[in-house]
């Protein structure tokens, strides 16, 4: 396998000279995506993507609307399985294991690869029950142990201080930003290895956005984060690596600093400077 299999052929010569992503060896990568193609019925959404996503780093997917970044994200926890129209080719390896292999349990995969959606989607239950939801599915804990995990998860999501006195209130009584952090806490409670974030701050106000971004940075030491965002500044602020997708293809993938300060391709430069998309 060539050393640069994580970038598409069209951009590999350019990247080869900078070495921007050659610093992600297979041993340091969490996801290895090889030749991934995906189509909704007859409409192709992703074509022949190959990239590695580094462990315990923040990787951002950017690109114009409809470029396939959310589709790629949802492929990583097999959320497309629900849609009978979706056809897929290629491979996705999580820690060396093909996630589509028949012995992989999709529910367990989704526990390992948590996901936070664009609009906060807490369940219509209490704050406590929201965080306990995934836990209850995985294992039966004594109440005291469960309380500890829930406190830990809410602290990890920087929400504990705001909700500790009203854990049994409805989750829908929280503000949008709090709801989104609650959803993150809910996901953290089941100890995922990867956290997929699909524009997690796009429905939030600037201060809530800031809190989410701080949270993303603080979680990096524990797990791998993959962030889809429309907001270039956000990608620049929080991510270590950035992949630019357009028309279902991976255009450029590099360390965030390199990609934003010194894009290889004119297309990337046009996008990040706002002349396109």
């Amino acid at each position, binding site marked *: 396998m060539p050393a640069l299999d994580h970038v598409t052929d069209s951009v590999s010569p350019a990247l080869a000279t900078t070495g921007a992503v050659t610093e992600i060896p297979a041993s340091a990568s969490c996801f290895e995506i090889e030749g991934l193609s995906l189509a909704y019925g007859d409409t192709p959404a992703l074509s022949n993507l190959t990239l590695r996503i580094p462990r315990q780093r923040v990787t951002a997917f950017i690109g114009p609307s409809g470029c396939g970044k959310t589709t790629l994200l949802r492929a990583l*926890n097999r*959320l497309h399985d*629900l849609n*009978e129209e979706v056809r897929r080719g290629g491979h996705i390896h999580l820690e060396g294991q093909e996630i589509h292999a028949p012995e992989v349990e999709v*529910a*367990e995969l*989704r*526990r390992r690869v*948590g*996901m936070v*959606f664009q*609009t906060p*989607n*807490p*369940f*219509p*239950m209490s704050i406590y029950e929201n965080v306990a*939801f*995934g836990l209850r*599915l*995985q294992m039966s804990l004594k109440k005291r142990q469960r309380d500890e995990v829930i406190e830990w998860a809410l602290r990890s999501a920087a929400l504990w201080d705001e909700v500790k006195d009203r854990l049994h*209130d*409805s*989750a*829908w*009584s929280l503000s949008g930003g709090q709801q989104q952090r609650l*959803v993150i806490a*809910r*996901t953290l409670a*089941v100890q995922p290895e990867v956290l997929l974030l699909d524009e997690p701050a796009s429905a939030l106000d600037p201060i809530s956005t800031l809190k989410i971004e701080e949270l993303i940075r603080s979680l990096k030491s524990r797990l791998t984060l993959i962030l889809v965002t429309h907001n270039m500044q956000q990608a620049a602020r929080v991510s270590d690596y950035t992949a630019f997708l357009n028309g279902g293809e991976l255009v450029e993938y590099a360390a965030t600093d390199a990609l934003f300060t010194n894009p290889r391709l004119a297309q990337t430069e046009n996008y990040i400077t706002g002349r396109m998309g």
Partner: protein
Amino acid sequence: MMARARFLHGYRGEGPGAWLAAGCVALALLMVVALLALLAGRGLAHFWPTEIELVTLDDGERFAGRAVREERPVQGQAMPVERLYYTGNRDLDGTVWRWVDVERIAMRERPADLVVVERRRWGDFIGRVVDRNTEAGHLVLESIDGQRLIQPLAEVHKIVYPNAMSSFGKLVAWEQGVWRFLSEGPRSANTAGGVWPAIFGTVLMVLLMSLAVTPFGVLAAVYLNEIAPQGRLTRLVRIGVRNLAGVPSIVYGVFGLGVFVYGIGGTLDTWFFSERLPSPTFGTGGLLWASLTLALLTLPVVIVATEEGLARIPEAQREGALALGATRAETLRRVVLPMAVPAMLTGMILAIARAAGEVAPLMLVGVAKLAPQVPVDDEFPFLHLERKFMHLGYHIFDVGFYSGDIEAALPLVYATALLLVLVILVLNLTAIFLRHHVKARHGALQR
């Protein structure tokens, strides 16, 4: 000025359309109010202890009775007005009604000693009590025209002196009358007495129907909306279900008779109750078959309401659960179904509203003209599903069309109709209260 302009022209200038629409609402409200007022007025007045008139005619004949109404026999002609009196004493006179030409009435009095004796047989006696013999256990009664009779006290329900009563006493008597109507069984071929077995039968039948239809309909809706592949076949099934709601109810009655009563009931009889044959146990109409027939009738309503509720649940909720490692079954059970409970209860409310008023199918599958024993008692197995039962809707039909004395039956028809409306209202309110309670538990569910 502003407010007045808005009042005249509607908000944002909807103009005459808005007035037309508002007028339609007003008309509909007016008709509902008129309906309830008619039922309440005619039905509830029946229990008021109206005073007894002692009437003397111009030829010296005297009789006692309650004035009911007046009528001009032929419209538009110069015929005398006739007044209808309820005179009671069926055993003495052979009739309880008397039409009298108003111009022939010489004198009307209201002596305080006139009595109305409600009896188990022969209906009311109107006249005077001559002697009260408590030891022998009978009353000696005398009608106005001098006929005497001996009335055993054991067969007397109530003795009332309406002319001697104060307004408060009348109110108490009215309340007692209403209460007895609600709490007692029917008498005199349903033209007197109460409707308690019919209330009980209606409510029990509706509850059993809800118990049968809700789980069945919810599961069907869950399959259609959550599990079945959304192909052409599913769409076809869905259209079929919706159209079932339009099938006339008597057709369901025929189906219930053929399948439940003769088919399943007949088979049950040959298997388990063969010692009682040829008299059927389950092979004849009964509470169970009536409930199941109505459950079938209301099934489409529950399926459609539940499906709409399921479809309203945001996909994000399902994905949120799946993304936490829940299987599809866990997602369904822990997230989707709890959120759809209000929709299921809406389905149940609609089902109750539809089922409680149905009469036609019941006539084929188990309603009875007279079943004074309610289907619940202290005899094992306590709930007797095979028994026939009374139903308010059918009671209205029976009293209205099959009683020998329509003048006596008519107020009961109104009262029973009012009661049926109230029973349905209470059943619906209970379900609505339940739904509200569930919604409150989920917090602000509507976003």
